[in-house]
Each structure stands twice: as C-alpha cells, then as structure tokens.
C-alpha cells in the first residue's frame, strides 16, 4: 500500500509543481503586459504637448459623456 501512496503523492506533487511553473510563466506574461502598458505611457509622454492636451480632453470628455449619459437625461 505504501507503494500506492507514494505514487499518489508523486502524482499530486507533479500537479503542484506543474501549476507552480504555469503560475510563474503567467507572472512573466503579466510582466510583459505591464511593460507594454508602460511603453504606452512613455509614448503618450513623448507626444507633443498639443496632442497630449487633446488626448486628455478626449478621455475626459468621453468619460464625462459616458457617466452623465445624454440619453439618460432624456
């Protein structure tokens, strides 16, 4: 029976280690995505001031428009 127990424990150890490796890989992917987001931020900061202002206005207006909802007022 001890042999069977060992094999069962080996199986779950294998599952645990595999999941750990997958989690580590997912973390590295998240790091990649984070660096891409950081790049977008740098790209925004690198734009001429005039376009930064325009983009901020675009986001602000879009958010305000979505929150207030012109149809909601109707």
């Amino acid at each position, binding site marked *: 029976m001890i*042999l*069977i127990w*060992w*094999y069962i424990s*080996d*199986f779950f*150890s*294998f599952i645990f*280690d*595999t999941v750990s*490796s*997958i989690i*580590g*890989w997912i973390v*590295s*992917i998240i*790091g*990649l995505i984070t*660096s*891409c987001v950081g*790049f977008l931020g*740098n*790209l925004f900061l*690198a*734009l*001429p*001031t*005039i*376009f930064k*202002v*325009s*983009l901020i*206005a*675009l986001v602000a*207006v*879009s958010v305000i*428009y979505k929150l207030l909802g*012109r149809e909601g007022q109707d």
Partner: protein
Amino acid sequence: MQTIKKVILVLICLFVLLTSFVFSGAALQLPGGELPDMPYEDMLAMFDPYAVTPLIEAQYAFYPSNDFGFNDLILTSNEFIFAENLPFGSNTAVVSCKQFNGAVCLFFLDSTKQTIFAQRWNANNGQCAVEILSYSPIYRIAYSPWTGLAVSFGGQIGLTNQGVTVSSSSNTNTTYHYAYTFGPYDYYFTVSDNFFDNSSLTKIVDGYGYDCIAGDDYGVGIYPTLSEKQNELIKEGNETSKNIFNTLGNVWDSIKELPSLIADSIKGFFTSLGDRISGFFSSIGDRISGFFGSLGDRISGFFESLKNYLLYFNDTKPEHVNPFSDILTDVKTFFNDQISDVGDFKNSLSSTLNNVVTYIETGSGVVNTFLTAVPMLSAFITFFVVFCIVRKVIGR
C-alpha cells in the same frame, strides 16, 4: 445611433494618434530631407551666442577709387565695416580699416555720409597720408563670433576684454574695434586678425587718440602678438559652431530615418512575436503529447507489475520509481525556458519601443519648439483639435 457614435469616437482616437505621430516624427522628413540651403555665416550667426549686432546703420559701402592706388582693396559686402561717432573735427566716423603692402589704411565717413576720408599709415616709416574718396551705398552688417580682446597700446596702456566690438568676421579673418578713455583722451583701436595664420602681417593693432590730427602717428604701432589664447578661443568658437551644425545634421539624419526604423522595429516585433507564439504552441503541444504518452506507459507498466506481484507472486516486487520525475523535469525546463524567452523578448521589445519613444520625443521637441515660438498658432491648433473632439463626442 449609438454604434455610429462609437465608430466616430474610435475614428477620432485613431485620427488624433495618427496625427500626433505624423506631426511628431514622420512629417519631419518632408522638406527635401536636407537642411535648408543657407550660407554658412548666416547659419553661424543664428546660433552665435554673441548675437549679430549691426555696428552701423549700414546704409553705405564704399570703393576706393583707382586714383587712390588700392585697386585690389575694393571693399565689398564681404569686407568689414564699422563705425563710431568719432570726434574727428567734422564728426567723422571710422568705417573701415585695411592693410595693404604693409600699410594700414583707415577710412572715415563724415556725419553727412557724403564724403569718405582715408588715412594711410605706413608701418615701416610711420608716414601717413590723407586722401578723399567718393562714396557708394553700404550693405554689410557685421556679426560677432567673439567679443573679447587683449591689447596694449604703445606700451602705455593695458587693455583687456572691455568694450570690444567686432567689426566683422569670416572664416579666416576677424576685425575688432575698441574704444577706451585714458585721462583726457579717447582712444580708438582697430585690430585685424588673421587667426589661422600666426605669421601673417594682418595682425595689426591700430589706434587713434581724441586729439590726434591727420598725419599724426600718435602712439600708434603695429602690435603683432595677439593673445594665442584668444586665437585658440576663436578657433574653438568656430569649431563649436561647426559642431552645432554637425550635431543638427546628425539629428536631422536620425529624424529622416525615423519612419523606416519604426517600420523595421514594428515588422521585426511582430515577426518575432509570431514566431515565438507559433513555436510556443507547437512546442507545448509536442511536449504535452510526449508527457502523457510517456506517463501512461509508465503507469500502466507499474500497475501491470503490481498486479502480477500481488496475484501471482510471479514477479519481483515492483520498486517505487517516481513516474513523474522525468516528466516534471521536462515541465520545469519547458516553463523555465518559456519564462526566460518572455524575459528576453520583453527586454528586446523594451529596447525597440524605447527607440521609438526616443525618436518621437525628438520630433515632439521640434514641434514643441516651433509651437512655443508661435504661441497663438499653438493655442489655435490646440483649441481646434479639442473643439473638434468635444464636438464629435458630445455632438451639437
């Protein structure tokens, strides 16, 4: 209706991003891809910390007549001109100084600007002669790459770096003017320095006192040893100015390469990304099939051995061998490789994207500089872009 608004919103986003990209980088390659064709001296003057200073109202240029015997001393717009309201009797102004065959010639312009006086002074025998020349319009405005000067006057007065004005300068010759008050007298000096030829006789300091009369060599002497340090500084200043243009040229070349570099970066990025994703899934598929094929064989083999041992006692007792050990090693190796690949990919991606950001920053700097120089235009464009966005998002 909502769908149309969303589409318009997305289009505006794309338009703003595309416009900003074009204005910040790609558009800079448009004007022929080269720096504007401009005379070197004009470009130098644009970046000269000692800015161009018209030393005279510069309405006149004059040409010594043939009778004066200086046929090859015709002064053109390439020659130097300077003027001060000198109290030489009839309120004349020095407008030029030239050396010819060892003689220094000073030219004066009277207050009516109708008559040119010329004084010729011979360095060898100290003889002076005064002659009157005709006049003609002047075009020259001198510029100043250097305003410091250290001279001494007749061994009596030490003068250093005070009140020196540069009458003119070219790539090979600079002329300085200096006014100084000593006791009851005002002294006026001119210096013509060929700073690329230390042995040249064009290094001349010439001076006139307030009470100097025509023909008097009052304390005037050739002083052929201008400061070598000054020469070095002048050369350094010229080299610095040239380096500025070299730097600007390099920046311009970099900007011109921006679109192709960005295109190559993006192309390389997606090619690399596609290969990696494809390789990842094919690799993981092969490995998973290998894992479970091997795992199934091992497990079935173990239980077959166990069954024979328990039921028939006709087999040796099976020994415990972790059937997952090799597989687990493969799994860990596989994911560690993937993590390493992702890290390498992230680093290469960051390098590429940072280059893109750097190039866009360069273009943005140019755009910002331009818009800062024309604030009204900047304000108008900003207002126009924001107005269009707001109007499109919210509607009329």
